[in-house]
Structures are given as structure tokens and as C-alpha cells.
């Protein structure tokens, strides 16, 4: 890494430290982030009237000016020219020429890259963020730090957490790429998580989850499908036990409770065991937020069950470490209870290293459930460590999060705290994917085909959702804005929620 990035690294370390020590909220963390970037680049910008405001219609002209002006200053300020032009292959030739003429100074921010993306930036259906970010990823893979710097400088200029989708993507992915460059992915991730957990209350969580459900079928889709499958599979049983490994804060259960309460036969006893996974590495210090929230949720579930007249027990199991290390003994599985396992976003929270995912599936199999319901987001986000694999995974992440952000954008009003929270969570996931080691990652989604393969390999067979469930799902989707639809999976392996013809969520049911 060259001097410039060492400087930047120093800066970022400081700010990261300060944000860790201070009880910074998530938003102040964002501010710090903004500041730190400004500071970083101010080193080069000098006293130039620097504005980090980024306009959608980017006008390269001021930057052109700025570039010239800045050059003189910075050239004298940083006398160590970095000769990273060895990575020439990936670099457009005109840049080479420019670099030479610029007195060997490697950091030539705006002009050339700006020109390079001029079309992309001005285009009507521009996806400039994806274009630039992908180029950045390629440059990283090529270890072309000059170009990386140029592109990141540009991304920083253009990105904004409060702008349009491209600006948001630019901002979140830049954060992740930056962490990756600094080798500070885990630290950044922890900072983000602890910041969000400090802000996490029952109230905010509830608002976010329920609002999301109100405006988008993203999570409700899985809930309706799974509840339908669970109710069908446990029909007629008098004692039910649901092991719930999900990330939707039990919002799935009220409707199930209601459905159970209105079952034509005798109301069964229901036990729900929610497994709350905390990473072993993740210090419990700041992570008290989520358990507290779950406790509150549990008490509400109990109250609601009483209201519904369902004999009900609710347990939260705190599982530290990887989900694949789950032990059956923790779960208090009883022979006389009909067991269902509900996995919503659970499988992808298992790290891809080793055989952990298959291991988890075999654990599920050993529980001898009547049914396992699996909901996963349909993406292939197994980002490789380096090189082409990294670029490919990065590209898929770009696609995926663009779809997600677009779906959020069309569902939520322009300014919405809930949306911001969801986007920040996504930003967190992006850091996890782009900048964190695989063994620690909890966000690496796989495609339905791969999950199906794993599940079948683990001794499960797919159960197709019955007609009633499909009807319920369709009825659900009709209530939302246009663009949502349901697609049957191949080989009766589940159904997809699709948004504008892109499958985004996959729901499926499995029996041993």
C-alpha cells in the first residue's frame, strides 16, 4: 500500500477508535465515516473549496479545475511518488500518458476516470454506481492501487447515504471496499453492528419490521408460505413445537397463532423455541440490545397467545457461536410434540467454510421434525477472497443489493427511518461480504438450487406448498404495489417471490 493509503489508514484508525470508545450512535458513526473520508481527501485537496455534496448529474468540470489546482500543492506535499504503474494492463492507456505528464504523481483524481464514466453518469438509466464499483473491484483484484484510489475518490464524491439508489450503493459499497483495503473489515463490521445494536430497541425494531411488512411482501411472503406449510404438516396434532431460527423477530407467529386458534379441531398446545445466534467472536458487551428485544417480543407473544386462547410457551435460546455448533440438548425436544423447524435467513448465517452448512442441515435432520421450512434470499453471494472470484461475487452482490435497494425504494416513502435502518443493515451485510473473512461471514447467501441440493443431500425431500398456500401468497401479493409476483420453483422445490421478474426470496418446505 502506498503512502496515501497509509495516511488514510491512520485517519480511519483514529476515527474508528474514537467511534468505538465513544458511545456513538449508528448515525454518528456515519458522520464519522463521512468526516474521515473528507479528512482523508482533504490531505490532497488542500484548501480547495471542497464540497462533498454529490449531485446526481455529475458535472466533471469543477473537478477538472480542482484537479489542476490541487496537483501543484499535493505534488510538493507528498514527494514520494508511488510507482504503481506496473498494473498497466487494466489501466486505460490515456491514463498512463496522463500520469507521466503529471510528474509521476499517481493520484490523479477526477479527470480521466470522470471521462471514463461520463456516459454512465449522464445516461438516462444510468447505473453508474455499479459500473464504477465494479471497475473498482476489478482494480482491487488487479492490485492497481492508483486506479483504485481514483475510483474510490470518485465514489466518495458521488456517493451519499441519503441520495438515490446509486448514491447509496456507491456509499455503502465504498465503505466496504475501503474496509477491505484497510484490512479493517471485521473492525468496521463490529463497529457498525455495535452501533446499530446500541440503537436497537424493541420499539425501533418493531417499527422497522412491521413497516417493512406493511409496504413490502419481502418478509411476509416467507411467513405466509411457511405458516401454511407448518399448519398443514402439524394438522391434528395436539402438541406442537416450533423451533424458530429466523431473522424476522417473531413477526411470523401472530398469524400462525391466530390460525391455530381457529383450527377446526381442538386448539393445540404450542411451544416456540427461538434460537438467537450471537457470533462467538462478537463481544456480548454491546450486543445486549437484541436479547432484550427478544425478551420483550417473547412476552408479547405470550400475551397474544393468551388473547388468542392458545396454550403457549415461548423460549429464547441464546446460542453463541456458529449455528452449526447447535446442540440438540439445548433445544428441549420432546417426543410427544410434533416438531416443525422454521429457518428464515438462518442457513445463510452459517459460514461457508468447512462443511458447516451441511452440518447444520444434518443437525436439523436429527431433530426429526415433521417439517422444515426454509426461506432464503435468492442470490449467490459467495464472494471469493481474491482475483476473479472476488470480482464475480462482488458483481453479484452489486446486482443483489441494487435489486434490494430498488425494492425498498419503491416500497417506502422517500424519507423513512425504517428504510434507512434496513439500508444500514444492508450496508453492514455488504461490509461482511466484501471485507470480512469467509469464516466470519454471516451473509453469504446461496441460490435455491444450491440450498435444495444441500437439503436433499442432508436427507430431506421437498414438499410442495398446497394450493391454498399458493392462493394465500397470491392474495398477499395483490395487496402490494405492482411488481411482485410468485414463481413456482422447479421440481416442486418451493416458490419464489419475484420483484420485477427477478426472483428475490425463496420459500420452501422439507420433510425428512
Amino acid at each position, binding site marked *: 500500500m502506498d503512502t496515501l493509503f497509509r495516511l488514510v489508514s491512520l485517519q480511519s484508525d483514529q476515527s474508528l477508535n474514537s467511534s468505538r470508545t465513544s458511545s456513538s450512535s449508528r448515525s454518528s458513526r456515519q458522520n464519522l465515516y463521512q468526516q474521515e473520508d473528507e479528512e482523508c481527501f482533504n490531505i490532497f485537496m488542500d484548501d480547495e473549496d471542497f464540497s462533498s455534496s454529490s449531485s446526481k448529474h455529475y458535472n466533471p468540470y469543477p473537478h477538472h479545475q480542482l484537479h489542476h489546482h490541487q496537483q501543484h500543492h499535493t505534488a510538493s506535499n507528498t514527494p514520494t511518488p508511488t510507482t504503481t504503474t506496473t498494473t498497466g494492463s487494466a489501466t486505460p492507456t490515456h491514463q498512463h500518458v496522463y500520469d507521466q505528464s503529471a510528474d509521476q504523481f499517481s493520484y490523479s483524481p477526477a479527470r480521466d476516470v470522470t471521462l471514463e464514466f461520463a456516459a454512465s453518469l449522464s445516461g438516462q438509466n444510468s447505473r453508474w454506481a455499479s459500473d464504477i464499483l465494479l471497475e473498482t473491484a476489478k482494480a482491487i483484484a488487479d492490485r492497481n492501487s492508483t486506479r483504485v484510489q481514483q475510483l474510490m475518490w470518485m465514489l466518495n464524491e458521488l456517493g451519499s447515504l441519503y441520495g438515490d439508489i446509486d448514491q447509496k450503493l456507491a456509499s455503502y459499497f465504498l465503505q466496504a471496499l475501503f474496509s477491505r483495503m484497510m484490512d479493517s473489515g471485521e473492525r468496521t463490521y463490529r463497529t457498525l453492528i455495535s452501533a446499530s445494536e446500541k440503537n436497537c430497541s424493541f420499539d425501533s425494531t418493531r417499527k422497522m419490521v*412491521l413497516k417493512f411488512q406493511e409496504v413490502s411482501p419481502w418478509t411476509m411472503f416467507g411467513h405466509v408460505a411457511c405458516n401454511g406449510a407448518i399448519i398443514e404438516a402439524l394438522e391434528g396434532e395436539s402438541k406442537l413445537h416450533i423451533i424458530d431460527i429466523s431473522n424476522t423477530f417473531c413477526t411470523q407467529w401472530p398469524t400462525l397463532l*391466530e390460525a391455530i386458534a381457529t383450527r*377446526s379441531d381442538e386448539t393445540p398446545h404450542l411451544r416456540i423455541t427461538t434460537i438467537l445466534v450471537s457470533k462467538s467472536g462478537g463481544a456480548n458487551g454491546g450486543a445486549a440490545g437484541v436479547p432484550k428485544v427478544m425478551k420483550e417480543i417473547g412476552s408479547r407473544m405470550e400475551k397474544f397467545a393468551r*388473547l388468542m*386462547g392458545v396454550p403457549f410457551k415461548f423460549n429464547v435460546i441464546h446460542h453463541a457461536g456458529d449455528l452449526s455448533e447447535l446442540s440438540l440438548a439445548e433445544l428441549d425436544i420432546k417426543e410427544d410434540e410434533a416438531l416443525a423447524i422454521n429457518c428464515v435467513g438462518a442457513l445463510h448465517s452459517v459460514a461457508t467454510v468447512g462443511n458447516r452448512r451441511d452440518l447444520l442441515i444434518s443437525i436439523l435432520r436429527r431433530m426429526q421434525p415433521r417439517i422444515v421450512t426454509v426461506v432464503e434470499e435468492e442470490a449467490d453471494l459467495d464472494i471469493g477472497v481474491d482475483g476473479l472470484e472476488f470480482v464475480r461475487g462482488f458483481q453479484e452482490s452489486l446486482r443483489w443489493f441494487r435489486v434490494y435497494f430498488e425494492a425498498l425504494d419503491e416500497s417506502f416513502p422517500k424519507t423513512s427511518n425504517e428504510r434507512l435502518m434496513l439500508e444500514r443493515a444492508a450496508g453492514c451485510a455488504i461490509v461482511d461480504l466484501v471485507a470480512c473473512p469467509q469464516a466470519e461471514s454471516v451473509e453469504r447467501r446461496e441460490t435455491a438450487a444450491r440450498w435444495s441440493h444441500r437439503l436433499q443431500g442432508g436427507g430431506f425431500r421437498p414438499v410442495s406448498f398446497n394450493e391454498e398456500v399458493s392462493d394465500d401468497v397470491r392474495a398477499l401479493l395483490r395487496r402490494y404495489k405492482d411488481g411482485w409476483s410468485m414463481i413456482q420453483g422447479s421440481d416442486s422445490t418451493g416458490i419464489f417471490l419475484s420483484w420485477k421478474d427477478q426472483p428475490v426470496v425463496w420459500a420452501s418446505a422439507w420433510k425428512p
Partner: protein
Amino acid sequence: MVQIEKSASQASGESRFLFSDNHVKSEQSVEPTLPVKKKRNLPGMPDPDAEVIALSPKTLMATNRFVCEICNKGFQRDQNLQLHRRGHNLPWKLRQRTNKEVRKRVYLCPEPACIHHDPSRALGDLTGIKKHFCRKHGEKKFKCERCSKKYAVRSDWKAHMKTCGTREYRCDCGTLFSRRDSFITHRAFCDALAQETALSQPLAITSPGGVMKLQVVAPLVAAVVSSPPPPPLTPSTGMWSPVLSIQSSELPENHIPQLPPPPGAAAPFPGAPTVTASNSSTSSGNVPGNGGVLASIFNVSTSAEHPHTAQPPVASYSTMLCTMTGPDQHVIDPMSLSLSSTLYLSSGSSSLLYPAALGHPHRHYTPTPQPALSATALLQKAAQMGATSSNSSFLHGLGLSMIPPPDPQDSRNSAIAPSHWSNTTHVKLENNSVASGLGLGLPSSNSPASFNELMMNSSSLFGNKPATLDFLGLGMGAGETSAGGFSAFLSSITDGLDMTTSNSFAGVGSTMDTWDYPSDRKPSML
């Protein structure tokens, strides 16, 4: 009947859930509810003299049993065929309406497992038994394209189609929902539920049109609040029965959870009211059908809009209180009883009840803002008042309150108390969760004061202080629907207590009926 059903379901269709703040309005709009159109026997409580008719499912479902030999047009009723024959200039014969001489007919449900398969539970109406059979035991052939809900009876489906999606659900917190599942999820997470501050669950419903049918509302409320434990409702016969029978039979949009006939209630006889009581109590923790009982309350209450009918129950309530307490009785006993009943009522209709009381000129009852007690606290308090119990249950409290030997001065009470008490004991034994279900079924923050008021003043209830009067006044809501319901309910308790000497099965009948009618569909707020 079909007509009644239609209008009722329309009303329900337009209706939406409202805050208790608004219930005064709904209260007013309640007034022009359906007049009592006709009187007949309570469904499921046939006249012992009635002719019992058992039809096979096929016959029952046959749409056109009476076929014209000329044009092959089929009719459901002989009378209609006769009228039709007149058009062909064929000989025709209409039965004269000589009600007294024509022997009443009652119909059995062909399904052997069904409660109405028992002759003592036969329904007095052919259409009624048909619909019952369809709803409860038939295939749901009619499906709403919009919401996927299915119906077995076409008229139900039609009624639903008219209103599907037009309704709104409003949580106590003020949030409006157009979708049922969102509303349910919200309810589970809403602070209004969590606070448990008081009992008057303000899920009152009012229709935008200003017309509201309580008998529809009741099941809706019941479905939303779903299964707050029902009171052992055993409305008296006499002048109540006809009204009741009609009300309870017109619950087409009745979204009460499906429920198999409670085993206890299947026992047909003089013990029946008692059985019902125990059944509903025991099931309160877990059986959705409780809604049906609530609905019954509501039905009763609807009828109370006829002032003249409302008076007797009041009397009976006071009578009951007297009989319960006796001059020397502990203050506790009737009080905890009244608590329970208030609780019951508030679960279903409190929001209607309280304003009714307030609005009435005679009412001294004025809820003063009091620190809201949590339901848990209330439960504990009740348990304390209920004396020795370790179980903090209102029902329990009720049961315990009965424990002190009835005042010998009141022979009636002493005669009855044991059986009644055994019921409550039964409750205790069978279901400990009753208590919680009871308390929590009625979560509401909107008119906590009223309940608290009751709680607070309860000790002076029998000290002839205003509170006492007020409390009784509550029951005296002659012109007020819910108040009437209250009194009706209380009267029903009296009746229940009284039942060993009375051979009325009215309460059971109505209860069963409300369980029965809606049974073909899921409780729903749509």
C-alpha cells in the same frame, strides 16, 4: 332470515374497528338496529313438544325438494311449490297459519358428531340447519378471489364479496389497517396489548355509514379479541328468549373460530347451563369458540335496546346480588363476582358499555382518571380479594367468592351455590391458565379508568354508596344497548344460578348456536 343475514353482514362489511373514543358515536348508531322481526324458539333449544325431524345429508342439501310436476321447477318449501302450482292452475293448498295447532318442527344435523345431532339440540329452522350443515360440515366451495377466503354457503360468500377489502381495522393505538394479517401482527406487537392497563378492549366497531349491527360486531370483536374467556352465559328464557333466538341466529358474518361442540355442553339437560358455564370457563384459556359466548352477550345486548325488555334483568341482577350476598355476607363475594362479570363484558363490549353508562342521565358512574393498573395487578388484586386462593385468577376469585357458605337466609342461593361453585372449582382444576387468558384477553388502555373505578370502589359496592348505585346502574342500561347486555348477562348469571329450579336451556341454546353458526369459517376481520 336471509334478509337479516344480508343486512347484518353488510353492516359488518362496512364496519371498522375503532377506538373507544369513538364509541359514543357507535353507540348512537346502534339504536336503529334491526327491529325484532319475529319470535321463535331458541335454536338448539327446541320446544320439548316439537316434532324432531332428521334429514339425511342428501335430503338436506337437496336444493329443490318439492318439484312441480308440470314444469319440473324445484322448490325448497312445499309452500312455495303450492304457490307455484297456483300459476299452473293446479289445485293448491296453503297451510293456514294456525301457529298454535301446527306442531313445531325441529331439525337435526345429519352429522353424528355434531352437537345438533342430538334431538335436544335440534335447530328449529330448516334453513338454519341447512346452513349449519354446510358451514360446519360441508365443503367450502365459494372462494373469494380477492382474499382467498372460502365459504360453504353462497350467501355468506356473496355478503363477503360485497365488502371484502373495504373494511379497515383500527388498533387501539390508532393505527388503521386494511389487511387482516397486518392487523393481527400489529396487535401482537402493539403496546396497547402489552400495557394490559385495563380491560375495556376498545375494539368497537362502527360503520362509516353510521349504521351498526351489534350482533355482527360481537363476533368480530370476539374474533379480534378472539377468546377472552367468556362468562358462563345462561340467558333466561321468558321474554328474553325470542329476542335472543333471533339475534343469535343471525350471525352469518360471524367470525367466530371454528370449534367442535364442547364436550361438556353436549350434555343436554337441566344441568346444561351449568355445563356451559364450566365449559366456557375451562375453555377460556384455549378454546376459540369462546367468541361465540361473547357473541351471545352481544346478542343479548342488542336486544336491550328495547327499553321494556331491559328492566327485568336489572332487577334480577340486583336480586342476584342480594341473593349472593345476603345482608351479612362478606362484601368480597359479590364484588369479585361483579368484577368478573365486568371483566367478561369488557372483553367483548366494554367500550360500548362504559359510554353507555356515562351517557345515561341516571348514571352516577363517572370514571375518574386513575393510575392504570396492569392486568396482572388486577389479577393479583382479585386473587387477594378472592381470599385464600393462590391462583390469581378472576375466575378463581369468582369461584372462591362463592366458597363462603351462602347465607342461609336466602334459600335460593344456598340451593344453588354448590353447583355453581363446583363449576368454578372445575375451572381451577382444569385450567390454570384461565386466569391469564381472562386478564389478558382484555387488554386495553383506553378506558382503564372505568374498570379501575370498579376495582377501586369495589369495596364500597355494598355500602350503599354511589359506587354501588353506579354499578347497578350499569346494569340498568334500559335504553342502552351494552348496558342492557350487561344486565342481560347478569340476569343470565342469575338464571344460571337459578337453573336448578328453572328448566330453561335458553342460555345453552344460544351459546351453542353462536358457536355453531359461524363455524364454517375462520374468524376473520375481513
